């Protein structure tokens, strides 16, 4: 700071920064990428460790033994599910009651804004069944939740059955200090959302749901269980929740600790851990795992039932059984024991999980990258925007400083600038608002006039508005002032750069992955933009194409590569899912992209057609 308060040194410094601006920016960008990729390298990461005392030192003994009974129960449940053609509510109520739980049901309905073609649903009507195990001598102030979605078809029967078996076993134990809620929800996330909104008496997403009768105080933690076969080979832990929120790292540590204890293979992002970090394969494996996490987190959707709990400050994770036909098998009893151990340790908690990290990336289950390590990668990218802005500021200010009689001269060129900057800003944002509002509201009109389904109508309208937005500023500019000045686009660029820096900074604070991915694609093009740049490059690095690339990279990483046409179809479904997630669960990625990132990008696009 002493440097800056000395005018001569300040001059030297700014001179240096403007002279070496481009090389510094390039170095920063490369350093940012390298830093990020380095995060997956094992020597640079930390081992996970249990921070919570209440869960660390107190060992529990697992005695659950009715795994076989759970499997036969699964068959019974399956039969009743088939007979009822959906959730067998009455059977579940009876089953829970006979196990000594207080049972309640909640019915809900929700009309989707447009049909969801992936899951084939539009008018959703369902019932959640939940039973509360009242802890002895506890005043109903704290609770834990175990949930198993009742999915259509043949899936997840085992999870529901294991839930019931656990309920029966837990009911006979005296050591519970927190009430335990066993929730079987219908229509996966929609059911969970309806239940959570009912429990907390909120209404964020226009569900029509019956009020809940039975409650058990503030929920401390939740586990979601998904099992679809009698024998599984590994358990996968899913952490990514709504808007990229993650549960406390101790929950992941707890899962890992019990997998180690019981000898269960555990994966994250479906990838097993490898021990050969010093080989190229080992590193690529870790990098792929981390990249998958970044991509999943960035898309801001809930990757399991647990994701919706995070909004209510309830630490939650999904445990997903995977049967990948390896020869290593784990039976239902072991999974039951694993859950028993986890629930008992959560039951021992004296406070909410808060000791460990909330912001982290996992290159494997036993290694983590904390916020302090990954933020510099983003910082290096974001500083480019600031450096370019500084450069522009100096360039814009230089002639004004040169003028001897100061203030009036400096004001002169910028006064037309206000309008030249304001017009594109307003127009871009109006386009953003249109992109946000019109696809859902215009679907009926679109269906009338074009031979497409509602879902296609929404997605295609969105793409159409997006494309139309590219033409719009170009025309208005010519209409308004005819010829743009050099000064004009520089002021606009300066504004847009600072705007983008603030946007990305805020995004990265909440959802690092989203901020980083946007920064990787947006920063180079926005930093180097001049009216002379090729429009094609600009388009290829636009937010929509970023999504497209992410789709391809994701498919590549989960080892299911797709062709271009399949990728395109996936891209369309990702857009529709994004809009649906926003409407159904309140995910903020779609509004962020439509209302802020896209308009910001349009401002840069405007510069391209300045003359």
């Amino acid at each position, binding site marked *: *700071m002493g440097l*800056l*308060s000395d*005018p001569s040194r300040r001059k030297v410094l700014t001179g240096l920064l403007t002279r070496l601006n481009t090389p510094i920016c390039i170095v920063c960008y490369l350093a940012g990428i390298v830093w990020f990729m380095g995060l997956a390298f094992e020597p640079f990461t930390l081992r996970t460790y249990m921070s919570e005392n209440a869960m660390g030192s107190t060992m529990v003994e697992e005695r659950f033994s009715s795994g076989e009974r759970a499997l036969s129960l699964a068959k019974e449940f399956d039969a009743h599910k088939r007979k009822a053609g959906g959730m067998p509510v009455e059977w579940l109520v009876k089953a829970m*009651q*006979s196990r*000594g739980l*207080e049972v309640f049901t909640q019915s809900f309905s929700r009309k989707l804004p447009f049909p969801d073609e992936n899951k084939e649903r539009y008018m959703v009507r369902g019932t959640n069944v939940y039973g509360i195990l*009242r802890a*002895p*001598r*506890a*005043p*109903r*102030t*704290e609770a834990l939740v175990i949930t198993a979605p009742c999915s259509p078809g043949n899936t997840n029967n085992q999870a529901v059955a294991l839930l019931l078996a656990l309920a029966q076993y837990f*009911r*006979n*134990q*005296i050591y519970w200090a927190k009430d335990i809620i066993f929730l079987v929800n219908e229509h996966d996330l929609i059911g969970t959302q309806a239940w959570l909104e009912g429990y*907390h*008496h*909120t209404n964020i997403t226009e569900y029509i749901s019956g009020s809940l009768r039975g*409650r058990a*105080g*503030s929920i401390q933690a939740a586990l979601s269980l998904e099992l679809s076969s009698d024998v599984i080979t590994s358990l996968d832990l899913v952490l990514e929740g709504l808007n990229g929120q993650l549960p406390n790292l101790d929950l992941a540590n707890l899962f890992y600790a019990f997998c180690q204890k019981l000898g269960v293979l555990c994966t994250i992002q479906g990838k097993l851990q490898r021990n050969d970090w010093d080989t190229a394969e080992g590193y690529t494996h870790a990098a792929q795992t981390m990249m998958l996490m970044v991509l999943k987190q960035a898309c801001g959707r809930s990757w399991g039932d647990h994701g919706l709990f995070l*909004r*209510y*400050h309830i630490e939650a994770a999904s445990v997903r059984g995977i049967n990948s036909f390896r020869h290593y098998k784990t039976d239902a009893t072991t999974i039951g024991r694993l859950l028993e151990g986890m629930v008992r340790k959560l039951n021992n908690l*004296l*406070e*909410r999980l*808060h*000791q460990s990290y909330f912001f982290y990336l996992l290159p494997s289950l036993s290694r983590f990258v904390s916020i302090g390590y990954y933020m510099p990668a983003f910082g290096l990218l974001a500083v480019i925007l600031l450096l370019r802005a500084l450069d522009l500021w100096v360039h814009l200010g230089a002639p004004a400083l040169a003028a001897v009689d100061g203030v009036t001269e400096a004001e002169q060129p910028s006064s037309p600038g206000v309008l030249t900057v304001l017009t594109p800003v307003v127009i871009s944002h109006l386009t953003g608002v249109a992109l946000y509002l019109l696809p859902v509201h215009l679907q009926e009109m679109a269906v009338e006039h074009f031979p497409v389904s509602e879902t296609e109508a929404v997605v295609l309208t969105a793409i159409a508005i997006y494309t139309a937005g590219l033409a719009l500023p170009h025309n208005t500019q010519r209409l308004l002032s005819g010829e743009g000045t050099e000064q004009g686009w520089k002021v606009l660029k300066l504004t847009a750069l600072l705007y983008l820096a603030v946007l990305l900074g805020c995004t990265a604070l909440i959802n690092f992955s989203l901020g980083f991915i946007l920064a990787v694609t947006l920063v180079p093009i926005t930093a180097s933009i001049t009216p002379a740049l090729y429009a094609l490059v600009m388009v290829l690095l636009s937010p929509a194409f970023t999504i497209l690339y992410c789709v391809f990279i994701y498919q590549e990483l989960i080892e299911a590569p797709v062709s271009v046409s399949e990728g395109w179809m996936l891209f369309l479904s990702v857009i529709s899912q994004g809009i649906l997630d926003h409407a159904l669960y309140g995910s903020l990625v779609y509004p962020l992209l439509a209302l802020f990132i896209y308009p910001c990008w349009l401002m840069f696009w405007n510069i391209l057609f300045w003359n």
Partner: protein
Amino acid sequence: MAAHRCGLSLVFILIFSSLACHSSCDSLENANEDTEEKQSVSDTPREVNSDGSIAAEDLNERRGRSTDAELDRRDGTRTSEALTPAAAARDEFQEELVIRPLHSGDIYASFQFRTLWDTDFLQEGQKVSHYRLFPKSLGQVLSKFSVRELHISFTQGFWRTMQWGQPFIPSPPGAELWVWFHDTVSDVDGNWKELTNVLSGIFCASLNFIDLTNTVQPSASFKPLGLGNATDHRFLRYATLPREIVCTENLTPWKKLLPCGSKAGLAVLLKSEKLFHSSFHSQAVHIRPVCQDEQCTSKAWELRQTLNVVFDLYTAGQGKKEWSLFKMFSRTLTEACPLATSSKVYVDITDNPEGELFELSPATPLLSQAVVLGDRRTYSVFDLTRAETFGQLRSLNLLLRWKGDGGEMLRPLLHAERYVAGFGLQTGEIHTVIYNNHPYRAFPVLLMDSVPWYLQLYIHTLTVTSKSRDNKPSYIHYQPAKDRHRPHLLEMLIQLPPHSMTEVTVQFERALLKWTEYTPDPNHGFYVGSSVVSALVPSMVAMNTNFTQDQPLFSSFVPVKEESSYFVRVYTEPLLVNLPTPDFSMPYNVICLTCTVVAVGYGSFYNLLTRTFQVDEPSLPLAKRLANLIRRIRGVPLLT
């Protein structure tokens, strides 16, 4: 209250006159005996109906013998009384255990121990130094702090009204203390402060955490239960500690207050390893002045010690619907407390007239009927003062074997629950839901809420809705909180429409505490005590307004003023609310970082923004400066 008083005395007069007409007995106690007999006579046809095997003459014979035995006992006490001063002449101790098999398969055991201390408590300045049955520690407390009435309860667990029905004496989770002081006390707050500290020592509880920030003075919800027409709530103090944990260290001092300790009588069953292996445990001490006789010519202190416990079907009963005294308490009964004038075990068999729901052994011919909580209940009575109760084995081990299958939820007439709505750490909403399940009667309830100051209530957001319509309370008493000094107190009289759900909501903002005000476990959350719903619920049967001693203890705690309704108090769950909490795990780092950021970042930016810069003269080279120094000394013009 005055009306109540009038009503009570009127009732007494009526009873007395009827008794006088009926028999010419020499003492009032005998009169009681008579009424008891009368009741059992009226019960006789019912007994025969329910259990044909019992011969009427056998019954009569037993009854005759029991009266003899009691007369003997009374004679014995009289002879001993002759030696003691007249003031302690009529001290009395009764013990009672009620066992109620619950619908859910659980079992509810309620102990009541009643000690009467015949002393003139209303005389100011009188020092009482003679204690016979009454515990001295409490007696001294009463006289030192001029306590008129004292109610203290320690509860671990929450009473599940939907499964268990109403308890005999309700209590909120944690500790509850409410005290009426004599109206001669000038410094009520000072007395209260000292009293809580003393009680804290007596009961080994954290009652010393009761201070002005969690004490309120309810204006209507807590009326004196004993004699006296005190209605000025300035002399009332009420506080709860919802976080208080009850364990053996609270049970032991409680047991020590009993005349027989835990050596004999029903108290031998009170073994902590079983009592705390239960779903619900509540122990209480109630002290109040009562009338010694129907005319209220002499008054006495009544000390009621109650202990309620619910054993769980699954965890304590191993899933088998079979209960016995031994299974519940790991003890059996062998004798009554020798100091007790009555010692009885009641088993509720109302739901089991034909023995189809459960089987009770050993069978007892003695039946008793009592009107409890608006319902006429039938009880099998085991009188421990008689030798034949214990049978050949000289021990009584009651056995209850279930045959039926229960389990559905009950629909109690009045039921309340509470929860916090919303998410995030800034605001929230407290919802209190009160159910009136009476099919056609509306009745008013008094709702009392005491909310700590760190939840800042927005009282303008208070809404009361029944059947989705606004329900305007007819009486609202609201005392806003003062930060760090006093909690919110909200009392409302709400009319509950028949068969309805009434929802009371009020929004609040969570305060940011000072960093020293957080508890050692701030992320656990902060407790808000239960709200209290007090109501006169319409009764299904005529209530017994005869407030005399011939009823079992469990049915005579709360005075009944009218026949058509009975008094019920329902406590809701306490709330656990998270407040915005700083990260205490690394305070040093936080402090250092914050200070650095403020010092370096803010300071220098402020400096940069406020300072005006001027280009100063470039400083001279060292050689020139030296030369100038010499020139100055010489007085020659300086170089530039």
